[in-house]
């Protein structure tokens, strides 16, 4: 079971990132648990300089940008 975390305080980019990540998971036929992390303290536990951040199984895979669905699929597949 994958755990996918979306780091961000609820700005437009975080919503977009969540949509992209969900799309990637459903395309790859993976069941994943999505967690939205909005608290600044929890976000800062990961080393990132800009939100939104994407965390797959506790590993920060992207930050500060919106990856494409194909990219996220790659990260989910590992």
């Amino acid at each position, binding site marked *: 079971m994958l755990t996918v975390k979306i780091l961000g305080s609820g700005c*437009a980019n975080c919503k977009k990132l969540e949509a992209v990540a969900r799309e990637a998971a459903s395309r790859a036929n993976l069941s994943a648990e999505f967690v939205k992390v909005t608290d*600044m303290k929890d976000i*800062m536990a990961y*080393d*990132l300089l*800009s939100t939104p951040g994407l965390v797959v199984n506790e590993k920060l895979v992207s930050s*500060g940008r919106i990856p*494409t*669905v194909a990219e996220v699929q790659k990260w989910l597949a590992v």
Partner: protein
Amino acid sequence: MEFVLGLLNGGVGSLASYLAAHVLLCLLPAFFIAGAMVALIPKASITRWLGRNTPAYVSYPAAAAAGSLLAVCSCTIVPLFAGIYRKGAGIGPAITFLFFAPAGNIMALTYTGSILGPEFAIARVVMCLLFGIGIGLLMALLFWRDDVRHDAQTDTLFAEQATISRAAAGVLLTLVAVLIFGTLKLWPLTATVATFNLPLLWAQDWQATLFQWMPFDVAKGEEGVSFQGSVLIVLLLLIAVTAWKGLENITEGANLWTWLALGLAATTLLVAAMGLTPKAGGLEVALTGRVLALAVAMWAVWHFAHQLAVDDWRAWLWEAWRFVKQIFALLLAGVFVVGMVRQVIRPEWIETLAGSNTLPANAVAVGFGVFMYFPTLVEVPVARMFLDLGMHPGPLLAYLMADPELSLQSMLMVAVVIGRAKTAAYVGAVALFSICAGLIYGAWVDGLGWAPLTLTLGLILTLMGGSLAWLRHRQRATVPA
């Protein structure tokens, strides 16, 4: 009833004239520039100067540069602020970054310049830069012990290095050229190169109808909606529709709507730069130097954008569109409300409270700025209203410095990262420095010569340099290298 109608009319009038007159040549390119900054400038190219081993004379200016180039929205401001504070250069540069970001970013700068005039934009930037570094140093002096503790932690966040690519630099520079050519009121740009007539017989009637709908009083500083203005408003609406279809999913690739929206945006800029005068028997179109300069600059943007990697230009357009969605609606609502409020406020009130450059006037302005919260950039039309109503430029600058820096939102955010005590100190410092900035600028507007101005600013710089030296001395004394 009549009162309410008057209010609504004020709101609609200010919105319409605003859309037609101000927004385009400055805000449209500014959105694209802001998007390009977020998407195309690698953060590491600046953050590498914000690590904890960087000397202070590098990290403070770098923090200001980060504020102006990287931090166009809160997505970057909060994490970067926390990062600099906890894992990087410490509280001083973090505060400088936080303070300079709302005033030094490209949107605020161009918008202030176009609404309040270039001298205000320059004063705002210079004062915010100077006092941003000053406040940062002050905080570093007050809380130097904490920095020593943070310095003990390891730092990998700022170790990464990157440089900006040639194509990205080209896009940014040419976009800035579009912005400058669009807004500068200088000779070759304002000269008319050629005129021709379009046989649009309805143009003059339409103009007359517009003036009838939206009566305006030049003496009160109001502006009407011209024929050209109405054309631009229609173009803007078209952009809104096409952009929604073309840019909402741009990260997955461009479609026909994308190109339509971009083409419309370019057309809008060109139309805004022309002179359209309805005359008997048709519409006179004047091609200005501005039109030609803009056309060349936009071609250059296209040229460089072509060389960007696919992901890069998609990200660029997405960020630009996101800013439009995030800022534009609130800005329009703000302008509408300002237009309504203006009908109620009596110039005498402003005159008595802040009509001259005194200490109480500056303090009142700062107090207003601290307790009022306006969304991003709305502080600028509010300031314009105050200026029109007779507020002295000094207190106005003090207000402009205090308002965006000390919104409730930013205070809460700062409190989460650095704690209550430091937040209180920060708020106090901002209030104090804003009042000083207002007094200095006000005195300059009132005719203070260059010599005392340079002397005052020089004195502040010396003080800052001195405290920096003292700070380094203290830190060396406690932490053996």
